[in-house]
C-alpha cells in the first residue's frame, strides 16, 4: 500500500456491489490507466464500510474523502478532478438530510459519529485479500504475544477479565467457555467458528469475513492454543460465496506465512483450519446442532449437558465461538482487558455490531458501545424513519427476539436489558418498523420462519409453533375469536418452557412481545375485524370516493386484473370480487379518490 501516493478504496460488500450499475473497480482502473496514473494511484476492493444505504461507496486515502452513490460513469470525474487536480467532487459527497450541507469526511457524518469500531476496525480499511495489509494494522501481533509471552492460562485470564460475552446471541462469557474446554483433558480438542449466520436481517458475520478474514483466523489460532486444540473448523453458510472465497485466500496466505501449520512462529504449537459448509438450516446456529451438521448429520440439537466443552465435535471437547466474538479477541490481547472492559455497560462490555435495516433512513452495519440507547441508534445514527412516517416498533434478536416500542427507546442496549424488556440481543439484527406495519402480521411472519426452520425433533416446537402460526393466520384472515388471544398466550408459555433447544425456547418471543406491547392491535383484529396499519388484506377493501373521482382512467389502466370499470370522465368503480388488493389504484390516483375501508 505504501508505495502508492493515493488509494481509492472501493467497497466490495454485497450491498454496494449490487447497487453499482456496472463494474466500478474496472471503470476507475481504466480511467487511471488512461491518464497514466496506475503506478501512483491504486484501486483497492475493501470490505464493507457499513453505510449500505448510500452505496456504492468509494473512500479516497490519504485525505479520507468519503464518496457516496458512486457509479462507473463518475470514474472520469473522480480521476480528473480529485486525483489530478486535488478538488473534491462535490456532487458525490454525502449531503446532510436537514442542513443540506455536503460532508466530505465520514467522521463528521451522523451515521459514524457515535460508532466505535472494534470488531469492524479493519472493514473498509484493509484489502481483505492481502495478509500484508492486515499485518500492517497490527495483525497477528496478538498471536505473537500469546505464543511468546502469555501462555494458555494467562490468555484465558485476559479473556475473562475483559468481560467479553458471546456475540452470537446467548451472551455467555467467552473466557469461561474457554476455561471449561481447557480444563477438560483430552488428546484431541477442537475450535469451531460459527459462521452460519441464519438470522434474517443480520449480516455482520458475513461482512467481517468478507472484509477482514484474517482477524477471525488469528483469533481461532489463539483460541486453539489457549485450550490445547490443534484443529479448527469454520462452519460457514454456503449462501456466502464471497466470504468463502476470501476466507480460503486468507487461509492459504496464513499457511504460506507459517501462521498455520506445524510449529507456528517457532512455538512448537501446531494448528490448522478447515472449512465446513452449512446448507441452509437456521437451527444449525445452535452449537450442538452445528456440531451434528459438521459430522454430516441432520442438524438436530442434542440435550445439554454434556456441553460441547466436554463432549462436542467427534465427542471431544470443543469450543464454538461466533465470528464477531472472534473479531474482538486480537484487539483485546493487544490493548488489554481493562481497556476493553472500560467500554460498554456494567455487565456487557465492549461494542456490538448491529445490522440496522427496515424503515429507517440510514440502513447499514453499525458498531456502537454496549449501553447505547435505541433512540440514539434509530434516530441519530439511523437518521430517523423513512418518508417522514411515525416510528412504531423495532425488532431485535431476529426470530428469537421481540418487538420493542416507544417506551423502550431510552433503554440502554445490552444483553440483560433487552431480555428484561422481552426481547434479546441475538446476533444483532435490528429491524425498524413504522405505522404501516401490522404487528400481528409481523409475528405471523416470524412464526412462518420458525415453523419452516424447526428441526422437528421435539414436539412443543414442531407442533406448538405450527398451531401458533395457524391461530395468527386465522386472526389476520379476519376469522379470529376473542379466545384465540388467550390460546396464543398459553401456547407460547408452554412452547417456551418445554422445548429442547434455544430455537424452540425463544420462538414465541415475537408473539409474546407484540401481545405485551400492542395488545389493542390484536383485539382490533378479532373484535372489530380491522387492521389499522392496512396490511392484512382480508380485513380491508379498496373503494372509490365518488366525489373525488374525475374519471381520468389512470387507476383502471394500472389495475393488473382489470377490475376497475367506468367510462372516461365518469366515476369509476372497483369490482370487489375480482380485486386482488394490490393497492396500485391508490398509489396512482392523483385526486385522493381511492380509500381503504
Amino acid at each position, binding site marked *: 500500500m505504501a508505495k502508492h501516493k493515493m488509494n481509492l478504496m472501493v467497497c466490495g460488500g*454485497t*450491498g454496494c*456491489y*449490487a*447497487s453499482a450499475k456496472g463494474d466500478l473497480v474496472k471503470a476507475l482502473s481504466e480511467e487511471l490507466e488512461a491518464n497514466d496514473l496506475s503506478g501512483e494511484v491504486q484501486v483497492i476492493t475493501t470490505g464493507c464500510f457499513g453505510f*449500505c*444505504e448510500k*452505496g456504492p461507496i468509494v473512500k479516497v486515502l490519504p485525505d479520507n474523502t468519503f464518496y457516496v452513490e458512486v457509479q462507473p460513469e463518475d470514474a472520469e470525474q473522480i480521476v480528473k478532478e480529485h486525483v489530478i487536480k486535488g478538488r473534491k467532487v462535490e456532487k458525490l459527497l454525502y449531503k446532510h438530510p436537514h442542513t443540506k450541507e455536503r460532508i466530505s469526511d465520514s467522521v463528521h457524518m451522523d451515521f459514524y459519529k457515535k460508532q466505535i469500531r472494534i470488531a469492524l476496525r479493519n472493514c473498509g480499511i484493509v484489502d481483505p485479500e492481502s495478509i500484508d495489509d492486515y499485518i500492517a494494522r497490527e495483525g497477528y501481533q496478538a498471536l505473537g504475544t500469546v505464543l511468546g509471552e502469555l501462555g494458555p492460562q494467562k490468555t484465558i485470564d485476559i479473556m475473562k477479565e475483559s468481560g467479553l460475552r458471546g456475540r452470537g446471541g446467548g451472551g455467555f462469557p467467552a473466557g469461561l467457555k474457554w476455561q471449561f474446554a481447557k480444563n477438560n483433558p483430552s488428546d484431541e480438542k477442537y475450535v469451531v467458528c460459527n459462521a452460519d449466520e*441464519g*438470522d*434474517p*436481517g*443480520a*449480516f455482520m458475520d*458475513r*461482512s467481517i469475513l468478507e472484509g477482514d478474514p484474517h482477524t477471525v483466523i488469528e483469533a481461532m489460532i489463539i483460541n486453539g492454543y489457549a485450550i490445547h486444540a490443534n484443529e479448527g473448523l469454520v462452519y460457514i453458510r*454456503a*449462501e*456466502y460465496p464471497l466470504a468463502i472465497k476470501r476466507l480460503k485466500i486468507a487461509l492459504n496466505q496464513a499457511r504460506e506465512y507459517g501462521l498455520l501449520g506445524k510449529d507456528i512462529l517457532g512455538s512448537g504449537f501446531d494448528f490448522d483450519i478447515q472449512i*465446513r*459448509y*452449512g*446448507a*441452509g*438450516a*437456521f437451527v444449525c446456529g445452535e452449537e450442538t446442532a452445528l456440531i451434528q*451438521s*459438521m*459430522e*454430516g*448429520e*441432520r*442438524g438436530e440439537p442434542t440435550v445439554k449437558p454434556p456441553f460441547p466443552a466436554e463432549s462436542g465435535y467427534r465427542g471431544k471437547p470443543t469450543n464454538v465461538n461466533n465470528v464477531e466474538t472472534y473479531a474482538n479477541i486480537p484487539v483485546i490481547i493487544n490493548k488489554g482487558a481493562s481497556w476493553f472492559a472500560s467500554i460498554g455497560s456494567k455487565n456487557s462490555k465492549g461494542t456490538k455490531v448491529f*445490522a440496522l*435495516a*427496515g*424503515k429507517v433512513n440510514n*440502513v*447499514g452495519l453499525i458498531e456502537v458501545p454496549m449501553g447505547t440507547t435505541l433512540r440514539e441508534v434509530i434516530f441519530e445514527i439511523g437518521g430517523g424513519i423513512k418518508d417522514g412516517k411515525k416510528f412504531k416498533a423495532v*425488532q431485535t434478536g*431476529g426470530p428469537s427476539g421481540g418487538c420493542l416500542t416507544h417506551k423502550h427507546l431510552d433503554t440502554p442496549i445490552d444483553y440483560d436489558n433487552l431480555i428484561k424488556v422481552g426481547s434479546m440481543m441475538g446476533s444483532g*439484527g435490528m*429491524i425498524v*418498523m413504522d405505522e404501516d*406495519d401490522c404487528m400481528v402480521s*409481523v409475528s405471523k*411472519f*416470524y412464526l412462518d*420462519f420458525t415453523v*419452516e426452520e424447526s*428441526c422437528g425433533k421435539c414436539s412443543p416446537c414442531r407442533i406448538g409453533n405450527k398451531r401458533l402460526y395457524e391461530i395468527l393466520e386465522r386472526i389476520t384472515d379476519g376469522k379470529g375469536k376473542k379466545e384465540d388471544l388467550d390460546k396464543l398466550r398459553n401456547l407460547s408459555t408452554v412452547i417456551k418452557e418445554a422445548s429442547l433447544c434455544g430455537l424452540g425456547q425463544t420462538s414465541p418471543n415475537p408473539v409474546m412481545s407484540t401481545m405485551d406491547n400492542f395488545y389493542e392491535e390484536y383485539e382490533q383484529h378479532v373484535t372489530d375485524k380491522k387492521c389499522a396499519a392496512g396490511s392484512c388484506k382480508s380485513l380491508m377493501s379498496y373503494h372509490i370516493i365518488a366525489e373525488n373521482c374525475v374519471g381520468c382512467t389512470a387507476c383502471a389502466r394500472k389495475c*393488473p386484473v382489470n377490475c376497475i370499470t367506468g367510462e372516461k370522465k365518469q366515476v369509476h368503480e372497483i369490482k370487489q370480487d375480482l380485486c*386482488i388488493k*394490490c*393497492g*396500485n389504484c391508490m398509489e396512482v390516483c392523483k385526486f385522493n379518490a381511492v380509500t381503504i375501508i
Partner: protein
Amino acid sequence: MSSVKVELHQKDVDKIKAIAKEHHNEPEELINVLHATQEFFGYLPAEVQEIVGEEMNVSAAKVFGVVTFYSFFTMTPMGRYPISICTGTACYVRGAETVLDEFKRQLNVEVGVTTEDGKFSINCLRCVGACGLAPVVMVGDKTYGRVSPDGVKDIIDEYKDAE
C-alpha cells in the same frame, strides 16, 4: 421421492464417485459431497442420492434425510433462470411479499416450482445481507435491489427472450 425416473449415464456415476473420493469417502463429509454433487447436476434426484449413499457408506435413507433437512438442497431441477426473492425481515417490511405475489402471478407458478418451458423457477431465500437495497431479488447470480411489483415485468422480460 420424485416421481420422474432419472437415468444416469456412466459418466454421471463416475463423476459422483470422483466427488466422493475427493472427500475420502468419509461419512462426515456427506454434506460437502452433496454440495459438490448438486453443483454438478443442478439438483439431487433420488437416483443420485442412492449412488452418493453407496459411495459414502451410508444408507440411502440417511442421505435422503439430510437432503430434505437442509433448504439449500433440492430434489427438483430449477429453471434456467432461477428467481430468488429475499424474504428476510428487512425485505419483508419493505414489501417483499407483494413482489413475490407479482412474480407468482406473472409466471403462473408457485414457490418451488419451475415454469413449463423450464425457463424460470421461483424460490424464497432468507436474507442475502443486502438489506440496504430491500426488497431484493436475485436471478441467478445477479442482484436486483429496491424491486417494486411494478418492476417485476421488466426483470422477467430481461430473460424471457434470452437464450
